């Protein structure tokens, strides 16, 4: 597979030196060596398949079985109920509230996050001193743990002594009780998510930007294209595969949001996303079935519905990004 690409450079360099003089081989060695070549690969890949088979594939399939049962945590006698769990969950307004929160937070966090990342990457792509240090600076939020981030942000957003309300009061705004309402908790949680992920996505975009040949920009500049025009007409369309990649990754991650809203709310109603479920996400709803209701069956059902939600959104987002990008490409100067 790699032969065609590697062989030209290899023929130019001297053939690899034997590590030690070749020993005279006895027939037994040859037989052993053949056995080694034929069967050892399976031995080397076996750990993955054993671990995944037991702790990945089996649970995945078994989830379907559990979802069809009324199965209480700690008991060993599930009752088969068919699709009852699905009709029950799908008619639970709390489930749909969780879907709304998840999608809402996903949208108001992901769109600014990826746009900011694009702009930041474009800036980082310029020639400047101290690039590694600056890149480290924008990546540092991403290496911080979710729990620590959520704790700091819930303090920054606290009503009475939080930094954010204090800053807003200079503009005659607030004080807001950020946890108390849907819109405000959505915004607060989104800023947490974005703080953590803008820099990471920017580095991904930056990597792709560096592989765009610079002549394209030069000829565009000679044709009189402004730098913002170059950005939207050249950079963004050429980043198409990378943008699709980040959109899909953000979709998968964003729809599974759990730790941020959980720790942001804190206290007794943490798992509910606040007393009125202002910011309960689907994953929190899933865990509620376990911690508050002790229902394996309902938990598995929600897991399936979440998976479905992720599939639908990935497909929709893939379609949207592909279309946006190809219209951009049509208008772009090549």
């Amino acid at each position: 597979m790699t032969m065609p690409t590697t062989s030209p450079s290899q023929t130019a360099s001297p053939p690899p030196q034997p590590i030690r003089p070749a020993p005279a081989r006895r027939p037994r060695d040859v037989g052993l060596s053949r056995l080694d070549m034929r069967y050892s690969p399976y031995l080397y890949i076996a750990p993955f398949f054993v671990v995944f088979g037991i702790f990945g594939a089996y649970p995945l399939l078994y989830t379907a079985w559990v979802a069809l049962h009324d199965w209480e945590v700690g008991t060993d006698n599930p009752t088969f109920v068919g699709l009852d769990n699905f009709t029950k969950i799908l008619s639970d307004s709390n489930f749909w509230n969780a879907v709304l929160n998840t999608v809402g937070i996903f949208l108001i966090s992901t769109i600014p996050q990826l746009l900011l990342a694009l702009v930041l990457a474009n800036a980082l792509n310029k020639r400047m001193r101290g690039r590694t240090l600056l890149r480290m600076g924008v990546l540092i939020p991403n290496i911080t743990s979710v729990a620590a981030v959520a704790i700091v942000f819930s303090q920054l957003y606290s009503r009475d002594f939080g930094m954010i309300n204090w800053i807003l009061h200079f503009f005659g705004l607030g004080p807001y009780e950020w946890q108390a309402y849907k819109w405000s908790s959505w915004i607060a949680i989104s800023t947490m998510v974005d703080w953590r992920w803008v820099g990471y996505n920017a580095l991904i975009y930056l990597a792709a930007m560096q592989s765009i040949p610079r002549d394209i920009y030069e000829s565009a500049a000679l044709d009189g294209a402004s730098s913002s025009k170059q950005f939207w007409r050249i950079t963004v369309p050429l980043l198409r595969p990378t943008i699709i990649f980040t959109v899909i990754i953000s979709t998968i991650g964003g729809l599974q949001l759990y730790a941020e809203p959980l720790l942001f709310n804190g206290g007794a109603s943490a798992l509910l996303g606040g007393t009125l479920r202002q910011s309960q996400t689907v994953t929190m709803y899933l865990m509620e079935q376990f911690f508050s209701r002790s229902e394996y069956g309902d938990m598995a059902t929600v897991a399936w519905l979440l998976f479905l939600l992720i599939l639908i959104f990935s497909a929709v987002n893939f379609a949207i990004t592909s279309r946006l990008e190809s219209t951009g490409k049509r208008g772009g100067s090549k």
Partner: protein
Amino acid sequence: VTTVTRTLPRQSSRPPMNKRRRDLFAASPLTFVLIIATVALSIFPLYYMVVVATRSNDAIGTLPPPFTPGGNIADNIGRLLSNENAAFVTGMINSAVISLSLTVSVVFFSTLAGFAFAKLRFAGRNKLMLSILLTMMVPAQLGVVPLYMMMAKLEWANHLQSVIVPFLVNGFGVFMMRQYVSQSVPDELIEAARVDGCSTLRIYWNIVLPALRPAIAVLALFTFMAQWNEFFWASLAMGDPSNPTVQISLQHLSTGYYNDYAQVFAGTVLSILPLLAVFILFGRQIIGGIMEGALKA
């Protein structure tokens, strides 16, 4: 090996063309302002973490909020360490054991499997590789219920096995190592070693592993950080407050002691120290890993 180091000489070795060319890619003042502002916003919450962790609770509950560190850190850490409900020290030790053992195991099994997929010929190779890629696309939440039931049945729940054994190796690591092996180890070298009578295990140990050193560093760093930060599965499997991971300990702290911010923040500061240390020492490799990974995706 990182993109950072690779692109730098390439650009500077180019002869300067005309003035226009230089202007196009030079950072404008606006660019600088944007980047500096982003870096400041990125660092501020971490700085503020330190401010709160070193203050008394009285100082935190004032307006304007404190902007500079104080001298209360020892007191706050003392309260944290003697807080039996959070079991913070246990959490730190548990997370260190989990992260380090998984780093070793993920690197070992991934390089071994990556080597087999990249350089050894066997029936079903491509189909098996494809199935590994497919496993990477399924969200963790989907299998979580039976996995927990399994842990409960094995009586592993709330023991370290429950967060270690299921994650000894993963599709991402195998895929990443397969990519690196096929790029950085020439087929001819393997061929020569084999003619020489080397067993595949010897080839792996003496040729493949040394050539993979940079990639191993990246995978090890990613694995360590991801495991240190893991929250979702641990909140189920290690939910017992007396034997938590560090993240779960933080959760117990923040839900139970929200009026003792200073203590909670002392915990968050201590919990990110290992990450910061890793980042300061290996930031270049981590950035290189993210950027190279992006190009391969």
